[in-house]
């Protein structure tokens, strides 16, 4: 990336902002066509935005979205499409919840319990994505296909295990089924915010740490360099002595391990058990967030916050008589238009830089000609 700084920043922001404005216009149009007032909708959303509870919930949602996005981005950086983050985190959350809730854990120190739970989740996530990596390097199976299928298998596996006869129990007073709840010492207390009944997930700091590590590994380490190289040009990577198979395995394992973290803030900060109603589908949201944030650690954070905010204000739309599905439309349009916008900007940037170089060199050339 060039250091033509002001322009680089403007260009970097142009695509996501443009996509945002474009999708707002589309949504306004749809609202008008369906006899709703766009102004009232914005009103309802901004009213919701002023409630601390909405903001806390947005941040919490964003935390899990961000972790999912980083998991996806690790693969994206080397053109690997880990569509299986969804299955990975659900299986990881379920099994680590079982471990965290197990009776023998009650006697262990709190720090150890939490660490063990998180590590277990990472291991399960990595193992599940590792299957896809193994299939790819040994049999050439596309990771897109295998991770999608592993998602389905994870769904069945979780529903098989989440059964009173096996790892779960009935929740008293409801027909929900859950793993054994995690007792006090195994939980991670949230941060209290005045004016809000929800607490901020303390594991938001875990997400920040993961984001920092992601940035550090990619830009500062040999491993990150080889990963990016593989993504930019596999043939150049091979010629440079990078073992592409090894990189596939490593990045899938890392991606899966991060995916394992996705369920942790919810599990340790709010649910305390894995039940039938544990949030699902976050892996796919992660793909959208990674796309919108261009796999950039800060970009994805902004995208995750936006997504979290949109999700949480959707509730208030029902009250205003606007169908909440408008948020889904908006998110869909943002993702579609941002992908197009990024490609346009990328092409423009390549050409602009070539011109820039041409201009810089063109000048010296004339000088040379003058002096010779």
């Amino acid at each position, binding site marked *: *990336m*060039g250091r033509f700084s002001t322009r680089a920043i403007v260009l970097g922001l142009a695509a996501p902002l443009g996509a945002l404005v474009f999708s707002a216009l589309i949504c306004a149009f749809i609202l008008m066509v369906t006899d709703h007032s766009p102004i009232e909708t914005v009103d309802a959303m901004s009213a919701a935005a002023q409630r601390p509870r909405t903001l806390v919930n947005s941040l919490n949602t964003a935390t899990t979205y961000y972790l999912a996005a980083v998991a996806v981005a690790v693969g994206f950086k080397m053109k690997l499409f880990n569509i299986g983050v969804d299955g990975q985190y659900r299986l990881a959350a379920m099994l680590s919840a079982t471990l965290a809730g197990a009776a023998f854990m009650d006697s262990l120190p709190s720090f150890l319990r939490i660490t063990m739970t998180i590590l277990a989740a990472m291991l399960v996530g990595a193992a599940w994505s590792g299957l896809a990596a193994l299939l790819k390097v040994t049999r050439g199976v596309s990771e897109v296909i295998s991770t999608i299928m592993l998602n389905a298998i994870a769904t069945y596996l979780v529903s098989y295990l989440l059964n009173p006869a096996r790892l779960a129990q009935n929740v008293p007073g409801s027909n929900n089924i859950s793993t054994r709840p995690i007792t006090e010492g195994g939980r991670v207390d949230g941060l209290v915010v005045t004016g809000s009944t929800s607490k901020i997930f303390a594991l938001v700091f875990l997400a920040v740490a993961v984001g920092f590590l992601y940035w550090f590994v990619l830009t500062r380490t040999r491993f*990150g360099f080889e990963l990016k190289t593989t993504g930019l040009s596999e043939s150049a990577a091979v010629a*440079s002595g990078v073992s592409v198979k090894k990189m596939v395995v490593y990045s899938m394992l890392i991606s899966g391990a991060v995916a394992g973290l996705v369920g942790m803030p919810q599990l340790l900060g709010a649910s305390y058990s894995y039940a039938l109603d544990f949030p699902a589908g976050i892996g796919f949201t992660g793909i959208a967030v990674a796309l919108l944030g261009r796999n950039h650690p800060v970009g994805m954070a902004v995208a995750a916050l936006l997504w979290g905010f949109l999700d949480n204000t959707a509730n208030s739309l029902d009250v205003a008589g606007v169908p909440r599905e408008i948020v889904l439309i908006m998110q869909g349009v943002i993702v579609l238009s941002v992908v197009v916008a990024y490609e346009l900007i990328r092409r423009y940037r*390549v050409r602009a830089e*070539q011109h*820039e170089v041409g201009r810089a060199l063109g000048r010296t050339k004339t000088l040379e000609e003058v002096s010779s």
Partner: protein
Amino acid sequence: MATQDTGEPGGHPAVELTGITKRFPGVIANSDVNIAVRPGTVHALVGENGAGKSTLMKILYGMQRPDEGTIFVAGKPIVFTSPADAIKAGIGMVHQHFMLADNLTVLENVVLGGEPRSGLGLDFDTARRRIREISDNYGLNIDPDDLVDDLGVGARQRVEILKVLYRGARTLILDEPTAVLVPQEVDELFGNLRELKAEGLTILFISHKLDEVLAVADEITVMRRGTTVASVLPKDVTARQLAELMVGSALPVPELRESTVTDRPVLEARGLTVTSADGRKLLDNVSFTIHAGEVLGIAGVEGNGQAELVETLMGIRQPASGTVHLAGKDITRTSTKHRRESGMGYIPEDRHRQGVLLEATLWENRILGHQTRKPNARGLLLDRRGARADTQRIVEEYDVRTPSIDVNASALSGGNQQKLIVGREMSSKPDVLIASHPTRGVDVGAQAAIWDHVRRARAEQLAVLLISADLDELIGMSDTLAVILRGAIVGHYDPATVTPQELGSAMTGAGREG
């Protein structure tokens, strides 16, 4: 056929360009270009890469519009807005890279895009007759019903020419037509060009191979830095003078002074055999030894196993049998990374696919292939400052023309990318350099610089495996020459005595000797 100008004195030039100027934002690609091409002649346009030849041809073929200046065809000013206009005016272009569909016949390729209709069906018979006619008239020796896949490179080129003639061109632009041909095929092509000329057609021949230009052209226009600097007749100039016109200064030759060959073997290949998935032998029992201070040149028509040889030596491909030894150690089963770390430098054949990351900065490209070593890494971490400083040094020492080391490699011209690659590979002080077409697509100035660096390293005991399609370069730079044909080494030659023609024969398997 509207303009049958036979070229008698006073007749209009077939094509004339006057005062053509073309600016791209910030760059002047052409400024005040003047060329007059007399009908019924072969007019050569020579110049270094980046001298503005391609832009000029794009203007003449209607792909780009000039900012200033006029194009005259047969004396009449004409504005082209698209290649279709140029074709209508009787100007046809034979591209350097063939644009043929392999799985179609010659006939189908020629009519593609302008299929002759008769009612609802296609009228192939008329087309077939016309193709035969053109082929016979100009001695192209093409059968319309041959499958393009079965044709050799020379024949494919003739199909391209035929395609253009079929569309009624009277002036043919040939862009670097000999780049893909071996010497014998070049002679055939020139024979064809003379026949075309004899039939009254006009040919604009773009090249930077000066011997060929002198052999075939009636007139020569030289371009330098976007403008035409001289128009000369071949009988008045030597290749050297022509080159100096192109470069604007005295010219280097690829030539090794005294021998620096030692008796210390550095890279040894023994009985290397590589087979493809379907069992064909891509490399067949290849053996050689390169000593410290020695350049071994491999001559061969592309696709005769050179790529496989290089990949096997670099550990990208595993041989079915045979061994590779580096400084006496068997490295046959080691990884590419290990080989690079043990002192093998690698200038890959395909710059864009293997040599650089186009969408990464120059300093990141400096790290590529050297990511485990100083000055790019400290332990498991990258040493960004070290890499950047060393990139700056390479940019200066190897004359990489760039405003900054923070631009992406895609912003640089091919020659400058290549200089960066050469600088990078030389900077790790390798014991062996595997150089595939190190000066391909590089202008004369950069070529000389690259040769200089190789020579200097050779004097410091570097062993080099040189693969090149440029026979002059091979002969000039090598201490020993081997010819590869269908994956096997078929002859050894002494570069001091061999001629390009002899090498050419050996490369095509015509005259096996040595």
